[in-house]
């Protein structure tokens, strides 16, 4: 009786059932149980149970189970989908179907290839952008110091005044590591085999720093050690740079060799580090020891004791402790610095791995929104291509209803038909993927002007491979699942008896919804592109209040005295004409802006405010053709006495009329200036910003740049430019002459707009194209399905025109619905986008009607070809077809 209470272990039983599935079923389980109960008579229940476990486990991977599963999989209603014979058959059928319906295949492959290429390129670009400086150890605790001057609102710099880093190193012990460096822009030379080899300036790859730098940035030392940087007149080279200088020799043999900078600073190589392989914005090739500054002419250049200068080339990094909060550290640092200087500096810590997105003046959020926008575009393009596939294959599947009927009658399960259709999509997606992989490199090449530099495509990199596989399966499911479910649901009886059972004309169908969606997206892009186009036109052609046509500008060394600039300008005036040249600080419009606080003094009292400052000699206003609307221009004088302001300045101190300000006084930097004239407002920043108050005067200390206006195109004045360069070289033998057009800089300011415009234009073209080929295929199908109807209509007297009309009307209705949906969407989007601009075009109805018209006409043109062909068919032939 007692044994009745014992049962075989339930867990073992459950594992066995899970493992063997439905094949092993009852007989093996029954045998196991029977053995168990027999064993109970002979041994303890524990041993019997133990034996049951052993017997059950012995069946894992057993031939019996394997063989039974194999046999079961041959059964038509089997769950086992991984059957290689059937998969081979599916692929064969897929290829045959594709070969039979060439037009549909081409449409689908073309659309999917475009969509996939867009996705791949966007993926590569974003992946590249996010790859910068991700490899540093403890990168989330390493920060760059950004300095703002509280006394001068708006003065911020991703740099630190030179004394900041040494002060913090000595007075602040709470960090894990700290580093400071100065960029050193210099040409270099080495003596090799008795010859002097000269090298041009490298762009920001030479820094002057000390051993601390290597506590933050990790390098592998191939020769020497970081201790080299604790001695003056030493330099550490990267492996690649050492190779450029001395050829491929052993790193240890490079030690002790001499590199001379700017022909006058000979430094001894004290170490070689391995180059970083990963992407970084902080690639350095030469590290010059800090002590070198004190021991050479660099002392004058770098002004290590000057608290008042902020130049981009001096930067500091800090690595904080795990427990610390970056904002608290920032205020601690500001407190320490506050004790040393009168300047009111505050700091912000910027995370190393995010610095790539915080470059210079560009805003991180802008870049991110561009990423989102571009990813959304790529996904939309892919979606539209997938819709083509869904539409065409559901439409076409009616032609295959008999095949499906027969398959079902012979014993195919629904799963197998779904799998068959999915594998057809898969084959198509695979072909498209391979094509787009082949297209990626040419496309990257073609788009190189719009993409970040240094993007490479490696098809077998792990991230790329993972992305490709996800894309392939994602697209197969996205495009293939609905058609597969739709088709496999056909009832064999109705399929086999009548051909039109599933044709379904009229009413609400998914196919129509999808076409409406496609056209809505296309239409949206058309309208948006039209609006952006007008805004770009407006930005380019609107009167900015000054003229920079054919104006070339170049800078001179900030450190050298202004009298040298004067000498240079006087020489240039000899051959370009007096009023064509001006000495200046900044151009009227550009990235760089100088802002200062002022006090306006009148008999009513003192008004304080901020103004942007343009420094220039007395020819500045006339050279840039800025219009004076009151008073007169300031006169050339040895000391600063007069200034001209703009209309916004007049308004900012509450005066109504420009004439009222003439003769009043303003104090800037402790200097009293009399206002002698007012100019009309001119743009100083991007069109997003309102025109701010501005003061133009002859601030001699700021005038380190020269601007020259040419008569006629700059490119036609090569000879004059060569002369200018020669004059430049005479005055500044060690400097590089690098002129640029102001117009180019202004174009750059709207670089993001320009890029968005280009991208939206491409997106528009691609979406329209894919939608059109989709509609083309659908129209072709409709015409084919209605061949008999058309034949009968013609026989009964319908005109060709009438039939074309009849076939087109369906698509016109669909496009009409899209117009109704897309117009408010596009209006709303553009309305909020334009709101970011202080200076913008007004949205008008014609952008949207033009967009609608373009969409309608393209759709009609696409469809009409098919309709025309169908309507012109021979009715006799039409009636003979089944």
């Amino acid at each position, binding site marked *: 009786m007692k044994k009745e209470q014992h049962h075989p272990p339930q867990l073992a039983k459950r594992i066995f059932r899970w493992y063997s599935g439905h094949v092993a079923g009852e007989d093996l389980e029954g045998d196991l149980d*029977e053995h168990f109960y027999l064993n109970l008579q002979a041994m303890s229940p524990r041993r019997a149970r133990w034996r049951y476990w052993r017997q059950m486990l012995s069946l894992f991977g057993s031939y019996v189970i394997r063989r039974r599963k194999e046999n079961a999989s041959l059964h038509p209603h089997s769950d086992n989908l991984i059957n290689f014979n059937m998969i081979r058959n599916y692929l064969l059928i897929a290829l045959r179907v594709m070969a039979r319906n060439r037009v549909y295949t081409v449409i689908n492959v073309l659309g999917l290839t475009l969509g996939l290429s867009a996705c791949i390129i966007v993926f590569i670009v974003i992946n590249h952008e996010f790859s910068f400086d991700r490899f540093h150890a403890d990168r989330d605790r390493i920060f760059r110091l950004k300095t703002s001057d509280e006394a001068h609102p708006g003065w911020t710099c991703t740099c630190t005044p030179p004394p900041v880093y040494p002060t913090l190193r000595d007075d602040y012990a709470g960090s894990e590591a700290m580093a400071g460096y100065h960029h050193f822009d210099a040409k270099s030379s080495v003596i090799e085999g008795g010859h002097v080899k000269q090298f041009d300036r490298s762009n920001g790859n030479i820094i002057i720093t000390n051993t601390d730098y290597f506590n933050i940035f990790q390098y592998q030392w191939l020769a020497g050690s970081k201790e080299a940087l604790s001695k003056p007149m030493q330099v550490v080279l990267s492996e690649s740079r050492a190779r450029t200088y001395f050829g491929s020799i052993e790193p240890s043999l490079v030690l002790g060799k001499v590199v001379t900078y700017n022909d006058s600073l000979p430094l001894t190589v004290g170490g070689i580090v391995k180059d970083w392989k990963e992407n970084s914005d902080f690639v350095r090739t030469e590290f010059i020891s800090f002590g070198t500054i004190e021991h050479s002419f660099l002392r004058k250049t770098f002004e290590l004791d000057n608290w008042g200068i902020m130049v981009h080339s001096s930067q500091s990094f800090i690595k904080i402790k795990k427990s610390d909060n970056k904002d608290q550290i920032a205020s601690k640092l500001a407190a320490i610095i506050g004790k040393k200087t009168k300047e009111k500096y505050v700091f912000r810590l910027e995370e190393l791995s995010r610095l790539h997105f915080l470059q210079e003046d560009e805003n991180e959020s802008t870049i991110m929104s561009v990423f989102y926008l571009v990813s959304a575009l790529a996904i939309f393009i892919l979606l539209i291509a997938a819709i083509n596939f869904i539409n065409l294959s559901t439409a076409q599947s009616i032609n295959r209803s008999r095949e499906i009927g027969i398959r079902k009658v012979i014993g195919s399960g629904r799963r197998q038909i779904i799998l068959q259709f999915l594998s057809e999509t898969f084959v198509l997606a695979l072909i498209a993927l391979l094509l787009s992989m082949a297209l990626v490199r040419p496309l990257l090449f073609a788009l190189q002007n719009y993409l970040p530099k240094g993007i490479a495509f490696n098809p077998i990199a792990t991230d790329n491979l993972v992305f490709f596989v996800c894309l392939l399966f994602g697209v197969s499911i996205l495009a293939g699942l609905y058609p597969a479910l739709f088709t496999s649901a056909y009832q064999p009886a109705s399929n086999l008896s009548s051909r039109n059972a599933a044709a379904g004309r009229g009413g609400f169908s998914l196919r129509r919804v999808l076409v409406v969606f496609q056209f809505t997206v296309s239409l949206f892009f058309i309208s948006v592109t039209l609006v952006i186009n007008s805004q770009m036109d407006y930005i380019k052609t609107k009167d900015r209040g000054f003229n920079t046509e054919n104006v070339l500008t170049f800078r001179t060394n900030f450190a050298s005295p202004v009298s040298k600039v004067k000498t240079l300008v006087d020489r240039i005036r000899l051959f370009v004409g007096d009023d064509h040249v001006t000495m200046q600080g900044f151009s009227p419009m550009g990235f760089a802006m100088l802002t200062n606080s002022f006090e306006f003094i009148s008999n009513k009292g003192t008004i304080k405010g901020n103004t942007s400052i343009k420094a220039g000699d007395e020819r500045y206003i006339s050279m840039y053709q800025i219009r004076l609307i009151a008073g007169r221009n300031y006169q050339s004088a040895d000391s600063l006495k007069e200034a001209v302001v703009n209309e916004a300045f007049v308004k900012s101190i509450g005066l109504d009329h420009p004439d009222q300000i003439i003769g009043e006084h303003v104090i800037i930097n402790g200097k009293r200036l009399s206002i002698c004239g007012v100019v009309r407002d001119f743009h100083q920043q991007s069109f997003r910003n309102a025109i701010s108050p501005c003061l133009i005067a002859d601030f001699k200390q700021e005038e380190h740049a020269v601007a020259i206006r040419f008569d006629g195109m700059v490119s036609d004045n090569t000879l004059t430019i060569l002369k200018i360069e020669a004059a430049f070289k005479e005055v500044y033998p060690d400097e590089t002459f690098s002129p640029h057009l102001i117009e180019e800089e202004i174009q750059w300011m709207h670089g993001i707009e320009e890029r968005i415009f280009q991208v939206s234009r491409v997106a528009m073209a691609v979406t329209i194209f894919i939608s059109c080929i989709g509609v083309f295929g659908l129209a072709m199908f409709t015409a084919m399905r209605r061949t008999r109807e058309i034949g009968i209509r013609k026989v009964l007297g319908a005109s060709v025109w009438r039939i074309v009309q009849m076939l087109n009307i369906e698509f016109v209705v669909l496009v009409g619905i899209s117009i109704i949906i897309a117009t408010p969407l596009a209006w709303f989007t553009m309305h909020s986008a334009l709101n970011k601009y202080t200076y913008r075009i007004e949205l008008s109805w014609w952008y949207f009607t033009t967009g609608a018209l373009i969409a309608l006409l393209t759709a009609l043109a696409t469809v009409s070809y098919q309709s025309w062909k169908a309507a012109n068919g021979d009715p006799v032939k039409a009636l003979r077809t089944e």
Partner: protein
Amino acid sequence: MSSKRNSIGEFEEIILIITASLAGEAYGVTITRELEKKTGRSAGFNTVHTTLQRLEDKGLIRSEMGGATTERGGRRKRYFAITALGSRTIRELKELRERLWKELPAKVLGISRG
């Protein structure tokens, strides 16, 4: 083909003979018990079933599910029975052995026993 079908191992042969001898009552448990009783060797659960499956693949035995009974919680048994090919195979094996034994000189037998 036929030679392959005939090539069966010693254990397979024993299982085949036992299956035949249990006529009508041969299923996993009885076969295992009989094997233990007659030969004294115990075989693992998986070994017995794998052998039965192989014999079935070779066409020497066939199996069918028995009717549902109140035994074993209603789980049916899979009964095995020898096929015509199976019985011919064991018969041939027996004849082959006897022929070989007859030709074996008595002397050799003696030596081998010694």
